[in-house]
């Protein structure tokens, strides 16, 4: 700022300008500190959460996801607008600070912002303020005119958020206008006084205001200047103190949310941080039943949510019309916190969350596919919260009847179907699999690889084909493998994700002993859910690979060759299973296997890779009877058809179950089929003895 002309010098008011603005500063900051302190109260009553490890890695993520706005471009228009606003705010921070101080000390210049660099900074921020203002206009038009569907609030979740959103946009716009007007009136005054004038960026908002003000009288300029300053001052503090009451609180909290965000994919939080499995019996209550059972980080997530609706927009449960929207898991909890931990007054007694802000069906509707978390620009966590809420319901005995039978069967038989243990390996009986004998692992078998089959692939007539194909592929490439047979129990992946932690632990302990007793040095599975469980939920077992990784490696090494697929009129689309893709980042291997089949025509669905659309969920989700308008699988099958595919390739037995059902429900039998990657490889690979038949065989589907 140039010159001696400043609001701080107002002397003809009741109190001098300097004192007035100092008072506003002190009051504004005091209010903000008070409100934020009140907002932090529930966090002090929350459960523990150990998030203080790996500071460098966390800082790196702050650079990527906070400063770098990494997730934003996934939604092009909204993302671009946000990046511009964010960059504008970051740039304008020093300018806003200087402007505030100028009211008290007229010659204040931010250290480092004097001289040449200061001029460049002024020019840049003139444009920044202009861009932020324009973004507010565009955002308001989107909200009011184009109304993107993901901002809509369903009737069951309360009133529309549009008014609040537009109000906040308006406040920021006012702030930008006031800032520009203040700079412009200063400049215009200097011009008229013949004093040195700071350069205003050409065509920026301050520049345009300066042009408009050029012919005004000195008095008018003085009034404009002081008014602009006062409006800026009041709007700034109003906005600062209003933000903790709504979605804009993320301006303050997002940095912390992202720093403390979960680091490891595919994992689940323990029942209680800092309590080992052996001491769980001493924990009085499991899971989240009341608000204070959430961890402080999860509460911080509630504050950080910006209500952008991307989670719900990508949520398959929401798309299928189930009573679940991740967005409202957060918004409802945040509103609960605001109601029960008010800024004025004392916190009141907490009520159970289920039946009060959440419904049972809502919490059981989640397939834990992770699409919401993948999309969230602020890295808000959902799966851990859903699982914690389920742990609470399980602890209270509050479990749908449809899930009680499979859970009981898992307890007594080790599989959700209640089938006999001794029949677990029936799929591999001598004679069942052509050209391949499957050994049952024991100390004598000495097999290098343990093929962990898991329940559905062991017992389900259809899925046993995946087990047989896997076995044939493993023997084709000469790998020495065995299965646990009757000694194998369900991996417990969904048992854990449905909140039955103790049953999961008993399954895990049993399997851990059985796996280690087998003497195998590697584990292979064709079930991504088992893969995820063995990889992340189990400890002290040999490393585990999904069969698609094994096949990809063997194809690369030249140990698997394929017959060509030309002329079969089939177009393949690969469906990423959630627990292979999003939760474990295995996208390339299955695709590389398909692309290794000569002439195989493959298309991508619009929603693929980390945006893959869950087929309906695995494990216990197959037993749950959700309230929904349509099946997720049907939506998925239609997406494949839209992409021009007539064969859906997947790499998960649960995907197979859901997709094959969905093809029937959608009435697309004959037009669409589904095949597991192992089945396709098994049918297409060139067997040593039948290489000469190469030309006559076509790819199955």
């Amino acid at each position, binding site marked *: 700022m140039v010159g001696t002309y400043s609001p701080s010098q107002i002397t003809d008011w009741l109190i001098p300008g300097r004192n007035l603005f100092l008072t506003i500063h002190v009051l504004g900051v005091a209010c903000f500190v008070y409100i934020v302190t009140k907002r932090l109260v529930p966090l002090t009553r929350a459960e523990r959460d150990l998030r203080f490890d790996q500071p460098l890695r966390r800082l790196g993520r702050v650079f990527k996801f906070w400063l770098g706005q990494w997730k934003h471009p996934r939604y092009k228009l909204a993302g671009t607008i946000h990046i511009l606003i964010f960059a504008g705010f970051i740039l304008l921070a020093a300018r806003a600070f200087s402007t505030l101080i100028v009211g008290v000390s007229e010659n204040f210049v931010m250290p480092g912002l004097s001289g040449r660099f200061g001029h460049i900074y002024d020019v840049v921020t003139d444009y920044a303020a202009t861009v932020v203002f324009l973004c507010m206009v565009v955002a308001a038009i989107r909200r009011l005119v184009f109304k993107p569907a993901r901002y809509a609030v369903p009737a069951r979740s309360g009133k529309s958020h549009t008014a609040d959103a537009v109000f906040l946009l308006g406040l920021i716009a006012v702030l930008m206008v006031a800032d520009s007007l203040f700079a412009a009136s200063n400049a215009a005054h200097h011009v008229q006084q013949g004093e040195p004038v700071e350069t205003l960026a050409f065509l920026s908002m301050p520049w345009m205001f300066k042009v408009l003000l050029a012919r005004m009288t000195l008095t008018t300029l003085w009034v404009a200047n002081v008014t602009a300053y006062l409006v800026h001052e009041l709007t700034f503090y109003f906005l600062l103190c209003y933000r903790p009451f709504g979605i804009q609180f993320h301006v303050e909290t997002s940095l912390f949310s992202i720093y403390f965000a979960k680091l490891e994919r595919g994992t689940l939080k323990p029942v209680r941080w800092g309590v080992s499995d052996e001491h769980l019996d001493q924990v009085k209550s499991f899971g989240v039943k009341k608000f204070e059972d959430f961890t402080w980080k999860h509460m911080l997530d509630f504050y950080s949510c910006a209500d952008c609706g991307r989670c719900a927009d990508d949520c398959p449960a929401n798309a299928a019309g189930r009573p679940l929207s991740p967005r409202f898991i957060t918004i409802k909890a945040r509103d609960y916190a605001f109601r029960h931990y008010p800024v004025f007054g004392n916190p009141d007694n907490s009520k159970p969350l289920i039946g009060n802000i959440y419904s049972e069906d809502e919490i059981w509707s989640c397939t834990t596919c992770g699409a919401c978390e993948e999309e969230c620009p602020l890295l808000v966590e959902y799966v851990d919260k859903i699982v914690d809420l389920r742990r609470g319901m399980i602890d209270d*005995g*509050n479990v749908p009847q449809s899930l*009680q039978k499979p859970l009981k069967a898992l307890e007594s038989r080790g599989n959700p179907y209640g089938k006999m243990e001794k029949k677990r390996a029936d799929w591999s009986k001598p004679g069942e699999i052509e050209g391949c004998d499957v050994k049952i692992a024991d100390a004598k078998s000495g097999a290098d690889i343990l093929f962990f089959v898991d329940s559905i692939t062991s017992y389900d007539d259809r899925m046993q084909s995946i087990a047989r194909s896997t076995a044939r592929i493993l023997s084709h490439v000469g790998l020495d493998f065995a299965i646990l047979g009757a000694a194998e129990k369900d991996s417990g992946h969904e048992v854990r994700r449905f909140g*039955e932690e103790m049953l999961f632990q008993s399954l895990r302990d049993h399997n851990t002993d059985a796996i280690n007793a087998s003497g195998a040095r590697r584990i292979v599975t064709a079930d991504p859910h088992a893969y995820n469980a063995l990889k992340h939920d189990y400890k002290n077992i040999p490393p585990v690979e999904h069969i698609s990784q094994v096949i990809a490696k063997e194809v690369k090494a030249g140990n698997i060759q394929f017959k060509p697929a030309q002329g079969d009129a089939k177009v393949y689309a690969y469906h990423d299973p959630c627990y292979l893709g999003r939760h474990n980042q295995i996208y390339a291997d299955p695709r590389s296997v398909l692309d290794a089949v000569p002439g195989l025509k493959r298309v991508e669905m619009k929603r693929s890779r980390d945006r893959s659309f869950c087929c309906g969920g695995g494990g216990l989700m197959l037993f749950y009877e959700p309230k929904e308008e349509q099946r997720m699988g049907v939506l998925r099958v239609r997406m494949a058809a839209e992409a021009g595919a007539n064969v859906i390739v997947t790499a998960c037995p649960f995907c197979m179950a859901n997709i094959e059902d969905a093809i029937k429900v959608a009435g697309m039998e004959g037009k669409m089929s589904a095949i597991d990657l192992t089945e396709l490889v098994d049918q297409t690979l060139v067997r040593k003895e039948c290489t000469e038949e190469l030309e006559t065989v076509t790819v199955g589907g």
Partner: protein
Amino acid sequence: MEILVCERRVPDTSENEIELNAAGNDIERDELVYSVNEPDNYAVEEALQIRDRVGGNVTVVTVGGEDDEEILRRELAMGANQAVLISDESFFDSDGRGIATILKDFVRKGHYDLILTGVQADDGAAQVGGMLAAMLDYPFASLVNSIEVEDGKLKVSREIEGGNRELNEIDLPCVLSIQTGINEPRYVGMRGIRQVASVPIPILGASELSTDHVMVGVAAARVKRIDYFIPASGKGAEILHGSREENADKVLELMAAKGGLK
């Protein structure tokens, strides 16, 4: 209200493949898994809900051996206040009348306002509840699918033919046999069972109950099982072998022809 629920441990039909043994006089029991008889579990849930509404205690009891303790523990985990195992060598292989006699002696040792049984055991004959009521000279209602507590009496509805219901008033104390579907029994997880692992379950025998030996045990049984067999498939079933659409059309046609569609 003091509520007693009589229950029984049975092979879980959804988790077993029931086969006849080689001798043909029983089912093959080597690899069976057992659980609480399903209607009994509904009875316990109903008792817990009544207790939570009007206060009191829920006691669960079973006549059997030490293996049967597991279902009592499960019901304790569910929320029952106490559990009693009635076990005595002389009780083995009692018929329905014998079991009812044993339970009658147990009931007489305490004070119960309401006695619930499941409507029938998976491997039973739906007779103990009625006999127990008769022996106690208590009123009895069977197939109960809702209970409302009023002063000194209950309003119970019963399922009758064709899905209809009738509403009855019944004086306390009484015996009710509970139909499945009356409620949604709560889930009992491993954690719940572990938490009641050390709760003592008293075992009562013939001497504690002063049971008359003439009425119980295999010798007193007036109903004796003489065979166990799988009936030969009859001719009533028709299996459709067409395509899905043809079968659906055929089923509709058959249902219409037999008056199943109106």
